[in-house]
Structure formats: structure tokens, C-alpha cells
């Protein structure tokens, strides 16, 4: 069926009704097969994980999503605490990375001349080239130590009145994971926001400047509203990355199944509990961890679809998302 459709599209693309030569048929079949491989991998991933997680899915039902008790030795597998850990770390990263990234993107598009914007843009994007495990190493030996000795105590002294800002800052913990994730998703949010902001038509800016607006007023009134859904899409793409991030988080989050009582407490995210416990897990424990992966896959799937739709809406169709 697929091949019939292809023949049709091929004819119409050429604009003439040539008969399909054997070479062309083979060529279509081979490239079409590659597309089918992609389909098979994505579908296979959902099927395989569902199948592997089946014992846990059947034993736990839907309530595992909000059950927070996880005790492999008593066969209790509630995923709630890990979902909470993922939610806290990714939302923290999302908020702070987006604020910084949008300001940087505005600076690059609206203020900096080309000879400044290009290298700065490149340097920020290089952050995305550093492997997750290297972030983790740096997180333990540099960032974590800084949080324990300086940043953590300072936060408690000056922001102690904010809920959850107390406890004992350690090298590893929820807050270390939040900061590492913020740094890690910054380049993604920055690059996409920059492209979206650059796509705002010049006439929008000229119109408001002609009315006497200052540069910031121009950004606030003409640029940001126009780019809003694209910037939102950029933020959500960053969120998807934060949710699925594994090793950096596993190294710095402290790995504890407790519900964290404050922002310095150790915790788990969905990805880090898999990385940490899977090697020793057997039987139902193993199935439960694969169930966690399945939930993670479903969440990132939904997040990605939403983000793509938002970015496409602003930049106009598939062509504009080359860079991601």
C-alpha cells in the first residue's frame, strides 16, 4: 500500500507520467524501508517496554503513579516519589533556564552586533556538546562542593523564609540536580528562543519604535508577544530534555527514595532510579523499573509533541526547525 502511494507521489513530483523503471522501484523500496525501520523502532519501543513491564503493570495498576512507597524487599512499587523528583528538578530548571535563556536570546538578537552575537551564541551552544556524565563529574567535585560550602548556607541565611529552603546543604541533593539541569537545558532553550525571536518581522519593531518606544518597550510590546508561543515551545523542548536526563542527575541527586523534605534533601528522578537500581534488580523489581521507563517515555513523548507544535506555529512549518 505504501509503495502505491509512493509511486503516485513520485509521478506527481516529476510532473509527468513516466513508467516506474526497475531501478527506481528498488530505490523507492530501499529508502522506504529505512522509513519503516524508524516506525518499527518507535512502535517497538512502546511495545517492548510494555511487555517487559507487564508483571508490574498488572500487579500495581494505575495507582502506582501516585503511590509514593517504593520498597523492593516488600514488593511495594509506587512511582510517585520519582515522578515528584522529576517534576521538581525539571520545573526548577525550566523556570530558571528559560528566564536566563530568553534574556540571552534577546541580547543576541536585539542588542549585540554580529561580531559579538555569533561567538557568544556559539559558546552558549557548546554547553550542549558536553556529555551528561562530564556534567555529573563536575557537579560532584566542583558545583556540589560550592553548594555545600557557600551557596547553600547563603541561601538558607537570606532566603530561609521561603518554604523548603532549609535543611543541611550537602554535595549531592535535589538542589544540585536542579542547578545542573538548569545549565544543561540552557543552550537548547536559548538556541530555539533566539531563532524564534529572530523570526519576528522587522516591521513590528519599526512600527513601535516610530511611536517613540524605548528598546525594552519595543521588546515587551512588539517582540515578546509575537514570539510568545515559540518561546514557550523552546522552554518545553528544554523541559523534555530535563525530564529524560540521566547520568548527570544520578551522580548529583543523592539517590534516596524518601519524599524530599527540603530543597537540599537527597531524592530520585525517574531516570536516575532506573540507572541506579536496574543493575541489581530482578523479577518484579526489574519489571517495575521498566514501568518507570515506560511512564518516562510516555511523558517525554507528549512533551515533545506539544513543543514541536508550538515552535512550528511561529517559525512556520517544518523547514525552520533545522537546528534542533
Amino acid at each position: 500500500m505504501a509503495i502505491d502511494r509512493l509511486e503516485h507521489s513520485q509521478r506527481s513530483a516529476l510532473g509527468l507520467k513516466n513508467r516506474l523503471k526497475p531501478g527506481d522501484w528498488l530505490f523507492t523500496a530501499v529508502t522506504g524501508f529505512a522509513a519503516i525501520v524508524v516506525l518499527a523502532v518507535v512502535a517497538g519501543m512502546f511495545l517492548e517496554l510494555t511487555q517487559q513491564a507487564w508483571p508490574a503493570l498488572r500487579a500495581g495498576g494505575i495507582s502506582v503513579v501516585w503511590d509514593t512507597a517504593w520498597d523492593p524487599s516488600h514488593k511495594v512499587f509506587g512511582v510517585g516519589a520519582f515522578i515528584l523528583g522529576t517534576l521538581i528538578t525539571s520545573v526548577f530548571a525550566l523556570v530558571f533556564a528559560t528566564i536566563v535563556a530568553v534574556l540571552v536570546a534577546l541580547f543576541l538578537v536585539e542588542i549585540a552586533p554580529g561580531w559579538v552575537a555569533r561567538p557568544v551564541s556559539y559558546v552558549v551552544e557548546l554547553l550542549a556538546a558536553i556529555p551528561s556524565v562530564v556534567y555529573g563529574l563536575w557537579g560532584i567535585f566542583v558545583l556540589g562542593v560550592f553548594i555545600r560550602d557557600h551557596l547553600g548556607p547563603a541561601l538558607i541565611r537570606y532566603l530561609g523564609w521561603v518554604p523548603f529552603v532549609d535543611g543541611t546543604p550537602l554535595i549531592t541533593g535535589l538542589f544540585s540536580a536542579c542547578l545542573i539541569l538548569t545549565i544543561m537545558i540552557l543552550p537548547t532553550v536559548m538556541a530555539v528562543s533566539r531563532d524564534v525571536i529572530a523570526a519576528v518581522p522587522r516591521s513590528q519593531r519599526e512600527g513601535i519604535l516610530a511611536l517613540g518606544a524605548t528598546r525594552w518597550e519595543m521588546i515587551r510590546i512588539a517582540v515578546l508577544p509575537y514570539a510568545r508561543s515559540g518561546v514557550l515551545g523552546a522552554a518545553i523542548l528544554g523541559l523534555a530534555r530535563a525530564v529524560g536526563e540521566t547520568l548527570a542527575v544520578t551522580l548529583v541527586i543523592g539517590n534516596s527514595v524518601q519524599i524530599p523534605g527540603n530543597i537540599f534533601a537527597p531524592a530520585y528522578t525517574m531516570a536516575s532510579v532506573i540507572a541506579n537500581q536496574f543493575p541489581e534488580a530482578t523479577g518484579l523489581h526489574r519489571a517495575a523499573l521498566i514501568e518507570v521507563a515506560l511512564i518516562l517515555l510516555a511523558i517525554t513523548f507528549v512533551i515533545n509533541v506539544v513543543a514541536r507544535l508550538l515552535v512550528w506555529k511561529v517559525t512556520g512549518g517544518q523547514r525552520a526547525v533545522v537546528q534542533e
Partner: protein
Amino acid sequence: MTGQERSTFLGRTEGLYRRRKAFDRVMTGAMALAVVLAVIPLALILFYLLRNGIPGLSWDFFTQDPNRPGKPGGGVRNAIVGSGIIVGMALVIGVPVAIACGVFLSEYGQNRMGAFVRFLIEVMAGIPSITVGLFIYGLVVANQGHFSAFAGSLALAILLVPIVARITEEMLLLVPRSLREASYALGAPRWRTVLRIVMPTALPGIITGVMLGLSRIAGEAAPLLFTALGNQFYTTDITQPMDSLPRRIYVYATGPYDYWHEQAWAMSLVLVGIILVISLAVRALFGSRVTVRQ
């Protein structure tokens, strides 16, 4: 308007104008501050990689295998060679599929079916790497009954395909239509036109895509944890568990020994060095259109 009213009105607008200018300056300052905040982490990471990594680099580091845990010295030859083999095999598996997929999208993808495949590739690019590792674990490792370098390569290939396929499609679509038309006018069928005219023209771009994919998967440890596993010993047998740089960094970073930490920094320096060199080379060759993202 009396003189009195006039001067207060002007005074008020002038005050308002000054406030607006001041706020504009504050926000400009905020943007500049954000740039500084965004650049600091990279500077710090590179600084500590150099400071802590260089002391660990030695001849032994590259030519010896790890000692038994707790005995200082030794090197990470097995991890370096292992990474090379696993990543190389992932390229061999993934690149043909990715390029064929890119060709499919650029040649036959301007319809619903193409949009659907393009969407699948976006989805595939967003899948967390640890999930890919578990998928291959269930599909290959659990069925074969043992971990293997080959399984690790399969997992990395799955991460590679969406990156290379998207860039290939972009590069093929950049080839001018007139080249194609000239080929058709000479009576060449479509497949020959694509293979002999369009693809050679887009080749530098496609190679760029492959290099970017390479630098993306070279640093991945999460998909290897449950597939290639790791190996204390040197091996080139792809049916056996095999070590890799990112995975050994992970093990050493969490270990108790100081010389492990030193070697973890040195391995990170080597890994980031390789990735940055690829990234800079791609940039020099191809400008800013394409970038590396982990």
C-alpha cells in the same frame, strides 16, 4: 494652557521619559548579566577539566588497562578502544539507515506520509537515552542472555538515526533544482539522478551530519549501562561486554579512590576534547547552520 500648567505637564512627561529610559537601561543590564551567567558554567567546566584532567594524562593512561581496584596506576586503554569500537559499529549500523531515511524524506516526503515519518523522527530524537538502553536490553540482551558491545552499538545507532536523517534531508533539499532537471533532461532515471548528482553535491553536508551524530553519541553512557555493560579487561570481541569512556567515567566518579577521580577527570578531558574538536571542525567547514547537541 497657562504657563504654570504647561511647565508641570512638561515636567511630568520629562520625569516619565527619564523613568522609561532608566528602566530600559536596567533591562539592558539584566540581559548583559544573563549573558555573563550563561557563559560562566562553560568557562568553569573547561577550566576544571584542564586543571584536574591534565595531571592524569600520561603514557600509561593511554596504553595500560585498569589495575585491580585500589591499586593506583594503570590506564584506560580498554575504555578508549572499547568506545572506538562501539561508536564505530553504531555508525556502521545507523548511518546507512539514517541517510536512506533522509533521502526518502527529501525525495518522497512532501506529502502526508512524509510528514508522518518526519514526526516519528522528531519523536525518536526526543526519547530519553536511558529508555533506549532498556529497550535494547529487553530486545537483545535479555534474549541472548548476556551483555555485548553489539547491543551497545545498536542502542547508540538508535540515538544516531534521527540526528543524521534530519540533517541529510536538509542538505539534500538545498541542492539546486536545476542540477536535477539537467540530469532528467539527459534521460537519467530518478535513482541515478539522486545517487550520482544530488547526493555527491550534498556530500559535505551529509558528512557534517554524520560527524555531529558521532560527537553526540560518543559521550553517551546511559544507553550503554544495560547493553555493553563494562569490562575491567581489554577486549575486541563484540559479542562480549566491553568498556567505554563515558561508562568508565561514571564508575570512577562514584568510586572511593583518589586516583580513580584523577583518571575520571583525564578521561573527561579526552572525551570533551574530541567532541569539541569535531564541533569546531564542523563549524569551520560548514558555518553556524548546524550545531552539536547532547
